[in-house]
């Protein structure tokens, strides 16, 4: 592992009585692809969202590229610009065209010229295979297309790391692969990625490491191969038994 880009140290969080993140310690190296899996309610989405402070944590520290997550304000906005995020429900800006979705960040946050941002935006849309739809609105696209646009929107900011919060969970089965293909492509190019997913195929194909979470804790960390064939903890064996048997 190279120098760590994202470091979580002793992170704790409660939702009321529920201890959603317990003693989370995790380092993600530059260029590493980490897949976070676990049963629902295990805190994996919360972990993902805590990394760009969409969820606040109660104690512990999260640093990105050596800098601790700032409090709400300009500095936090700047940091978020460097951290791409892809949501389960796409969250494309519903009132803007596909191209405007991709160029909004570069123009307003990176202060790029409109023409430059649009040129790059079209390249990115081309790359994820939705350039034909550039002038349409999000509601006119299929889920798979919307999610690929969402990935392009994140990429347009040239992020240091990308977070994927269950990117394929809201998709029809036949659309999952078109999104995973884009993600595998990104992983191959050396993008640092933290991916919360149930897609074991993606984990095997693209991940350097699998992090298994249960009840707010990191129970096990291993290479995908080792984890899927020889899970160590009973919790992981039980989970894999349930999802791999059918």
């Amino acid at each position: 592992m190279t120098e760590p880009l994202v470091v979580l140290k002793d992170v704790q969080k409660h939702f009321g009585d529920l201890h959603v993140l317990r003693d989370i310690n995790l380092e993600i190296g530059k260029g590493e692809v980490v897949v976070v899996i676990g049963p629902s309610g295990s805190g994996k989405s919360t972990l993902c969202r805590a990394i760009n402070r969409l969820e606040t944590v109660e104690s512990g520290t999260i640093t990105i590229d050596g800098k601790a997550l700032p409090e709400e304000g300009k500095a936090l906005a700047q940091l978020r610009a460097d951290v791409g995020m892809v949501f389960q429900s796409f969250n494309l800006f519903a009132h803007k065209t596909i191209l405007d979705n991709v160029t909004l960040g570069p123009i307003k946050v990176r202060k790029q010229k409109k023409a430059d941002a649009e040129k790059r935006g079209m390249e990115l849309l081309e790359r994820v295979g939705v350039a034909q739809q550039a002038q349409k609105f999000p509601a006119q696209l299929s889920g798979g297309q919307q999610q690929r646009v969402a990935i392009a929107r994140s990429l347009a900011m040239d992020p240091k790391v990308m977070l994927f919060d269950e990117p394929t969970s809201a998709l029809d089965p036949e659309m999952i692969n078109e999104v995973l293909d884009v993600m595998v492509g990104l992983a191959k190019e050396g993008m640092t990625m933290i991916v919360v997913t149930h897609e074991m195929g993606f984990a095997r194909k693209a991940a350097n490491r699998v992090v298994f979470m249960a009840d707010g804790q990191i129970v096990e960390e291993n290479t995908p191969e080792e984890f899927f064939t020889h899970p160590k903890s009973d919790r992981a064996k039980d989970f894999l038994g349930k999802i791999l048997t059918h």
Partner: protein
Amino acid sequence: MGEILSNYDVLAAFWGTIQLSILGTVGAMLLGTIVAILRLSPVRVFQWIGTWYVNTFRNTPLTLLMVFSILGLSFILGIQLNTTDVSSNVFRWAVVMLSVYHGAFICEALRSGVNTVPAGQAEAARAIGLTFGQSMQHVLLPQAFRGSVAPIGSTIIALIKNSTVAQVIGAGEAANLMSTIIENEGSRFSVFLIFAIGFVILTLPLGLLFTSMSRRLAVKR
């Protein structure tokens, strides 16, 4: 009916109503947007100020606000909006009070519009690095405005009708002339008819316009 129309300048009176309504609407939209941003901001103190504004002005009768503007602010505190022309001073205060009062309703209409915007939109805006102001300006408010066209339309129509309350401080508008005519000519059905039709002409097309706009501008999700 004809003699009333020829003896009194009904059109000029309605022109006063129209001016009050347009200026009041502009003021109410500005104030309402500002107060809505205050109420939606993450800063507690701003939220309190916004909430205080809405609760105070939404629950104070407009008549009271109008009377207060002239008796309280203008006569006692001496705040004149036009020091040379009394009727202009009254008219301007009427605009201010219409704005202040309906601003509270516009704020709430906008907030209901914001509630039509899914939380994910704000999260996505923040996730690409937009500041609070930028996500308001480029993502949340444009969608909120589209989602609140119908309630804003209702507020503006209410404002047009409420402009008649400015009569209590003697602002030059339709209701003011109507009471003059009734005083001079007695209360006749034709007087009622003239002013009723006048307001129908002002408000009915506007209502239809807002309904069609709310349909056309709706954000497809």
